[in-house]
């Protein structure tokens, strides 16, 4: 997964015109694209052990609410994604000849909030399509349209934070991300039980 993200970032870096580099929008767009691919891989694998070992009934029959399974899968996917990002962000910034201005904390916030939305929607959708064969591409088709608002905001926010630093606009965008996470989180949490059972 980390390798995929690295490869994507490198390829994009090679393909872009050197004169355009240094653009915060480009860097942030490319990075988030890489994160989306990595994130999709992560959530697809979230149910992999249950698929391979056919142990899903074991989780269903255990005395834990279905929603706990959802939360657990989300947390593990987010962790995976954060590890990948810890790698990829510095490399992307270097490749795009770009230095961070402003404090790193808000940047961390965007990453976390964006990851959360990605993983929440991805995990729910992954559970939807887990029993099917063409799981990977199908997952992308279903999740990406849902993620469009999230990606628009995270890319803009990351770009702004990286280029200018903390601004009011960045603050508003972060707030919007919080709203997204709350809405999608609540919806996915409530809908998961309907989706996981056979």
């Amino acid at each position, binding site marked *: 997964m980390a390798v995929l993200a690295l490869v994507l970032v490198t390829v994009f870096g090679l393909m872009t015109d050197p004169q355009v580099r240094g653009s915060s929008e480009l860097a942030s767009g490319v990075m988030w694209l890489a994160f989306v691919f990595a994130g999709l891989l992560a959530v697809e694998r979230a149910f992999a052990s249950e698929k391979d070992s056919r142990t899903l009934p074991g989780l269903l029959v255990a005395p834990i609410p279905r929603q706990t399974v959802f939360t657990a899968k989300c947390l593990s996917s987010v962790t995976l994604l954060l590890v990948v990002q810890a790698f990829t962000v510095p490399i992307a910034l270097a490749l795009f000849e770009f230095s961070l201005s402003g404090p790193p904390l808000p940047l961390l916030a965007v990453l976390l909030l964006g990851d959360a939305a990605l993983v929440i929607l991805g995990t729910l*959708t992954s559970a939807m399509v887990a029993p099917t064969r063409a799981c990977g591409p199908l997952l992308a088709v*279903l999740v990406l349209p849902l993620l469009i608002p999230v990606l628009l*905001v995270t890319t*803009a926010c990351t770009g702004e934070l990286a280029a200018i630093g903390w601004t009011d606009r960045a603050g508003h965008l972060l707030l919007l991300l919080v709203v997204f996470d709350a809405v999608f989180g609540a919806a996915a949490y409530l809908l998961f039980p309907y*989706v996981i059972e056979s």
Partner: protein
Amino acid sequence: MRWALAIVGCAVLVAAAIYLGAWASPPQNDQQAVARLLYLHVPVAVNTLLAFTVAAVASLLVLWRKSDGADRLARAAAGVGLLMGTLMLASGALWARLAWGHWWDFKSPRLMLSLVLWILFVAYFVLRASLSAGQRQKRVAAAYCLVAYLDVPLVYLSTRLLTSDIHSPSVAALDARPPGLWAALPVALAATTAVAAALLAAGLRGTRRNDAQAART
């Protein structure tokens, strides 16, 4: 008998709309001529959202009441939504081309929203097709429809906040307003909604027939 009435009713409304829109008040300039596209675009857009809402409410019922009828309604409404969405995209793109010279603009919230809506309808049917028929398929499709519906206002919010749009002025603020707008537009809206409702009813009958046929095999 009821179908004949419905078709006649729709035909009358559509004829009235076309008459009012295309003939009754001739446009005074090119801009107004092009702006008449909104007699198609606006009603179709409204109906797309309406269809989506019906599908979402039906999906809620599928999950809450485990109702098969609600599932058929969701399917039919999504079908109408897809059709209306296609018309919305086409008329929107045509209008953009005629009015501003380009077919598409990624920076426009309205255009992006239409595209996302259209894609979500398609995704809904792709999901249904990839799952084997049964209770789970209905539940999962309903869940997806609900999440997709929640996505719509968020798409609108984010695109509005992030982009400026030369395509966004509301109908009332339109500079190049075609004459007779306030007469033609409501009729066009009524006509399109009537057609959409008729299509929905037809779709419902179709799904009921399909389900019955499938149950017999």
